[in-house]
Each structure stands twice: as C-alpha cells, then as structure tokens.
C-alpha cells in the first residue's frame, strides 16, 4: 500500500532536484525521470521521485489525499474532496 505524494521540482542540480509539496522540501534523485525542469510535478514515494505527473493528475492525487486525511479525522461526507467523482454518480 505504497502511498506517495505529488511534489513540484523547484531546483535541478545534476541528477538531483529540490522538490516541494505538502509542507515538505526534499532533495531527490531524478535520473530515471528523464529531462526534468523546475515546475515539473513528480510522484514521490519513500523519498524517491518515481514518475512525472501531469498538473491534472497531481491535483487529483492531492484531492484524494485531502479526502483521506479528512476521513481519518472522522469526516463522513467526503463529496467535497472528490468533485469530479460526485458528478459521475
């Protein structure tokens, strides 16, 4: 159950990049991501940037994580966290 978080590349230096997201700032290896630039969004698991994300995909994952965080705090109506999904009902 490998939960990860989306982060944004803010500075690239060789095969490493400083990335920020969800209150964190981490230096991550990006070699296997191919050409990477500041502003790119990446999916981070266990301190490793595993793949690039589109803006839409990163937003969807962040919303899902927000919804999960709300559920863990006892919130039962999660529709607000999944607006695209509720319209598909």
């Amino acid at each position: 159950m490998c939960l990860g978080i989306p982060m944004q590349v803010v500075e690239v230096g060789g095969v490493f990049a400083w990335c920020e997201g969800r209150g964190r700032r981490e230096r991550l290896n990006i070699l296997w991501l191919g050409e990477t630039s500041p502003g790119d969004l990446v999916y981070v698991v266990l301190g490793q940037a595993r793949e690039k994300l589109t803006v839409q995909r990163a937003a969807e994952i962040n919303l899902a994580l927000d919804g999960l965080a709300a559920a863990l705090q006892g919130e039962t109506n999660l529709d607000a966290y999944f607006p695209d999904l509720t319209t598909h009902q």
Partner: protein
Amino acid sequence: MPNFDTGCVRVRLTCADDLVSAVQVGSERPDVALALRGHTADQALQLVPLLFALCGEAQARAGILALAAARGEECVPRLDPSVQCEVLREHLWHWLLDLPPLLGEKALQHEFVTAAGWIEEGRRDELHALLASPRIAALRLRLQQADESPSPQPRLLPPFDARSSLAEWPRLTAGFCRLPDWCGNAAETGAIARQQQRIENSTLLLSARWLARFDELLDWATDDEQVGAGGAVSATPVAPGIGRSLVETARGLLMHEVVLDGERITDYMIVAPTEWNFHPQGMLANHLLGQEARNRDALQQRVRHAVAALDPCVRWELEWV
C-alpha cells in the same frame, strides 16, 4: 496544502547484557478503507489508483475484481500483464537502485532506466543478457558474502487464490487487516513465499528474499513465469454483495474485500503485504531478537539490511528503548 503522513514501520529495540533482549515491530499507516466506505463502486474504482499511484496497477486490479466478485463474477487465477509489469519494474528497482548502495556500491541507474524500458516493451532477451552479465553476477556474490546469520525457521505464507482463501479466512475483518495471520501465527509473503517449493533449506538467509525477486525477473526473461508468480490475480464472490480479490504484488499478497449495498460500498477491507511482513511476531522480530548489541552502529546496519530484505512500502524508523 497540509502534510500527510503516509505511514511508518517502527522497530523498537531493547538491549540488555550487550544483546537485543526485546523487539517490538509495528506498522502504522492510514486506514485507506475509511475513504472508500460510503462511495459508489464506480467512485471507489477511480479513487484507489489515485491513492496508490505507485502500485496503482495492482490496487486498481484488486478493486475492479473485488467489485465484480461482489456482483457475482468469479475470476479464475491468471497472470495479469499490467500487474506483472509493475511487479517486475519494482524488482528491478530494488536490485539495481536499492541493493548496490546497501552493499556499499553505486546504484546502477542507467541500467535501471534501460531495463525498465525492456520490460515495458516485452524485450525479454535483453533483460536476460543483463541478468546474466558479470556485473550482476558480482552483485549477487557480494550480496551472499554480506549475509550473516540465517533467519530462524521462517514461516512462509502458502500460495492462495481468492477461492482457496475462503477456507482459511471466511471473512476479512478490520483486526485481520492490521494483524493478518495464517493458522493463528505470523507468516511471510512476497517472492520468497511464492517460490517456496524451490527452497530446500528450512532456514533462510536474508539474501534469499533478494534472490527470490531476482528469480522472478529471470523467469520472465526466460519466458518461464508461472501462474502464482508476481502479477497473479483472482477473485471470488464471498456471499451475495460481497466480493474478494487476491493479487500477488512485488511485496507479496494483497487482498481486497468489498461489501456492497446496491451500488454503494458499506465496507471495504484491504490487507497489504507490509502487514504480513512486519507483523509484531514475524520474521523481523525473530531475526533481531538475541543479536549482539555491543556496537550499536553495527546493529543498526543489520536492522537496515533486514528491513530492506523484507521491503516495507512505507518508511521505517528505529527506536532504542
């Protein structure tokens, strides 16, 4: 945007007389099923791959098959190519990027990028040539030389498909999701459990876990993979409106069980491999208990090797009690 704790395996060691006298292992992670309850089946199918983007293929397949089973549709055991590809990529990641630094060597980053492409493109011969190369042979040798003590009597989870699992676990409960057991005891899952028929010794070195992953890569590269290997999927109805799926992921057995009331999910259980492999009475605790503790740095390194061999899907932390 608030921080989000994706979970942690916590290892607490107590030492007395220069030996590890007590080991506490616990897996702390968010209960994802909470976010799935109350949604419709279709919503859950969109949410699961978002929450588990890394092992998204395995999780998505497990969700789809469990929901189909809740509607009465059985899935006989088979290898799912997408899940299998994800499993092989994870094995490759561990062997080429994680293992070399653990042995004091540089990660094989360029080899990983190239070989991951071969797996996606189905180029088995190229991967076989890499696995048979002197560089990988040297890595295998270093791995076996670095191994220290055998794990005491490992208890490997036998192979299950969704239907055969019903006899062992008629229903999955929240307690079972946190602390899964087989016949009342902890058991290890993963490539090594999937390949237990090939294993001759009753005791196993830590390196056996790495070698089992390697063998799954080699099986694919030589076109010799079997149903039941990483990437195997199955599903079965448990009762009207209740379905269960089993998926063999890179880290081991993943189980989903969904309860539907009409189209809405009233309960959702997920049993992940990390809960099997980092069970409080599991292999890690048994392996560390009684280890020499005079040199804490050396002990910490041994813990690191043991955790890496079991491969948690969350970060891990070591605490001295």
